[in-house]
């Protein structure tokens, strides 16, 4: 019977990895700012302003930026920081 066990090695190192980490921190801060902006707009706007087309478009744009930002973070996380995986087969 074979049992496969996944083990994690050390984090990736090197310049690319350091750049990715710095970018992740910056993009995470940007995500926090965009998130705060979205909910501040929603919570502080009165009903008449919040039901206008321009308001909905503005919030939609911010959500698109946030989605793009999160996508970039995940890409950098996987490509730049993720640990190497080792598969060990146990007999």
């Amino acid at each position, binding site marked *: 019977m074979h049992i496969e066990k996944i083990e994690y090695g050390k984090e990736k190192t090197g310049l690319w990895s350091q750049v990715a980490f710095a970018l992740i921190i910056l993009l995470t801060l940007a995500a926090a700012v965009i998130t705060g902006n979205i909910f501040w707009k929603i919570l502080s706007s009165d*009903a*008449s302003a919040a039901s206008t087309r321009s308001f909905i478009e503005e919030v939609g744009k911010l959500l698109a930026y946030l989605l793009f930002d999160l996508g970039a973070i995940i890409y950098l996380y996987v490509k730049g920081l993720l640990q190497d995986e080792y598969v060990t087969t146990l007999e």
Partner: protein
Amino acid sequence: MEDKITLTITRRKLTEIFMGLVALFFAGGATASILKYLWPATAATGESVEIKIANVDEVPTGSVKKFMFNGKASVLLHMPAGFRAFGSVCTHLGCIASWKPDENLIECPCHLGKFDPNTGEVVSGPPPSPLPAIDIVVKNGAVFALNWKDSNYVKTISFYSGAA
């Protein structure tokens, strides 16, 4: 004796913590937004709060502006006799009634209930009662909604009626 405590944190762990904090922030904002939607400032209380509907010059005589009041679809009309505001959820089955300038009436498209734009009274069709009136005030060049004339109105209709 070793009394030094060493805390090791990897970049990967730090990234996960930051992302977790952003996710918590997002969840908190989303929850607050949902709560605000479910319990709008003056919902069902009859409390008077001025909510700006439009500037006077945005709604010339004979025109209308749709707006949301306490989470319900509403309409501001500028009639020759002055401004009028009503909830536009039809009192028949909850469709959204709209302004018909050619007939000078507010009409519900579902079963052709017609309402007087000055009083909200039923002119014809199946609606059992008038459109609910909204108290308004005009000041500083803008029209503000204050409250439902009937403070029990929001309690009496379906939660979802006119919410979209």
